[in-house]
């Protein structure tokens, strides 16, 4: 048996044992990814290679900085009371479909900014869930709507963590910028969002529930920050090829700075907001270490040897689709880390040639892995954060199945026809 197989075995064994022992608890996933990287390095007889273990995360650093700044910005919008007031305004909308769509977009807002569904659940999802509870909506339906809102938010631009992870695979040994994903992510997610909204309009906007009482005005400074940053990000995202006005990281950072002066904004609140994103960020960085150690120890070399003969014509696509499928199946029992790793490996064979449309399609496997996980996924997080009782993973997934299947179909189309669809990269 070649040494590289043994190294891969050790790395995956540490990770899988960790996932099983901790019941896929997200806060432990990063720790076990780190331990698996160290174990791989030791198994290869290279000692603890500190350089590779900390160099791996650098591939994700620029995108992670944008996520970190967005987490502070979004967290401060929550802590200054802006989200709460915004929800009150949305609940006054009279048109039912528009109201339902706005509720979904509201839940998804932090996910859009940060690429993290967990932040949507923690903030806007919690606010919307409380309102739904007060309206007497069943806990099962609340779980479905909050999960869907958070998931679609995560998959919408500007930041999308699964796409950030997949983009790293395209960079081969050098980091790839997370650029050009705005329109592909929109085309991927918007139809699914509209379908879900249409199917769940009775829950999201029940008849005769438009709030009549006068609501308080939106706080001025957060409103200015929200509109300004939102406009800058939209302009830059939609016109990436023509306009450069500083990038998302800078805009989120400026927005967060502005919000420090709003009522409820403080350094402590900013630190708490960043802390909400620390576990996913650490997960991202330790995944970088895991990938780097797998490259350093030759595991990736073996993978390349096995796949390169297949990487002509349609065989490349087959490798990508097979790895996506394996990731999705594994996600049921082992949550996100291994599917996320497989997603980067799915992109490796096309490397520099990968265009963001194909990468967006592949990234869906990592996104869906978070929803499909029986334990330690989006369902567990939603039920725990919103203190929902008697909700079942199977029931929630069943209610989400149609929009998720549509997303999977669009993802496969992106993977199959990514090259002719490259006009979506703006």
């Amino acid at each position, binding site marked *: 048996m070649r040494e590289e197989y043994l190294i891969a075995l050790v790395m995956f064994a540490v990770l899988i044992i960790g996932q099983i022992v901790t019941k896929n608890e997200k806060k432990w996933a990063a720790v076990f990814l780190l331990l698996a990287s160290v174990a791989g390095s030791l198994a290869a007889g290279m000692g603890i290679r500190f350089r590779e273990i900390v160099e791996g995360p650098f591939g994700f650093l620029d995108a992670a900085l944008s996520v970190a700044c967005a987490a502070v910005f979004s967290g401060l919008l929550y802590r200054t009371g802006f989200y709460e007031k915004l929800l009150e305004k949305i609940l006054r909308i009279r048109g039912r479909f528009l109201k339902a769509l706005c509720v979904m977009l509201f839940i998804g807002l932090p996910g859009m900014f940060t690429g993290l569904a967990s932040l949507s659940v923690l903030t806007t999802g919690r606010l919307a869930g409380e309102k739904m509870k007060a309206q007497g909506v069943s806990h099962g339906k609340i779980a479905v709507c909050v999960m869907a809102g958070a998931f679609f938010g995560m998959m919408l631009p500007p930041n999308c963590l699964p796409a950030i992870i997949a983009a790293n695979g395209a960079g081969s040994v050098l980091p790839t910028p997370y650029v050009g994903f705005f329109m592909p992510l929109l085309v991927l997610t918007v139809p699914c969002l509209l379908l879900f909204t249409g199917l769940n309009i009775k829950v999201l906007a029940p008849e005769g529930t438009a709030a009549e009482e006068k609501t308080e005005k939106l706080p001025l400074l957060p409103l200015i920050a929200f509109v300004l940053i939102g406009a800058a990000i939209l302009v830059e995202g939609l016109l990436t090829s023509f306009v450069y006005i500083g990038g998302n990281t800078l805009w989120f950072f400026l927005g967060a700075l502005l919000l420090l002066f709003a009522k409820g904004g403080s350094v402590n609140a900013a630190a708490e907001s960043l802390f909400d994103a*620390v576990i996913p960020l650490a997960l991202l960085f330790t995944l970088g270490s895991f990938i780097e150690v797998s490259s350093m120890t030759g595991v990736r070399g073996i993978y390349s040897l096995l796949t390169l003969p297949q990487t002509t014509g349609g065989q490349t696509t087959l490798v990508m689709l097979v790895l996506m499928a394996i990731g999705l199946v594994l996600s049921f029992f082992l949550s996100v880390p291994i599917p996320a790793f497989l997603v980067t490996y799915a992109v490796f064979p096309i490397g520099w040639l990968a265009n963001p449309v194909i990468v967006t399609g592949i990234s869906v496997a990592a996104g869906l892995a978070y929803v499909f996980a029986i334990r330690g996924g989006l369902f567990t997080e939603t039920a725990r954060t919103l203190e929902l009782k008697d909700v079942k993973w199977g029931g929630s997934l069943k209610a989400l199945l149609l929009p998720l299947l549509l997303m999977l179909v669009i993802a496969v189309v992106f993977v199959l026809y990514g090259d002719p669809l490259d006009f979506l990269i703006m």
Partner: protein
Amino acid sequence: MLELIYYVIIAVMAVLLFVNLAKKRGWPELICTAVVLVTFALRALHIK
């Protein structure tokens, strides 16, 4: 100029992480914070 902005952003994020380290947290959260902090700090040292 761009390097300076980049450095300022990383530095501010690192300070916020330090503020979090000073608070009572569980072991996994502390390890995660340390992982992010070390990555930010080492990147900052690489800026030319």
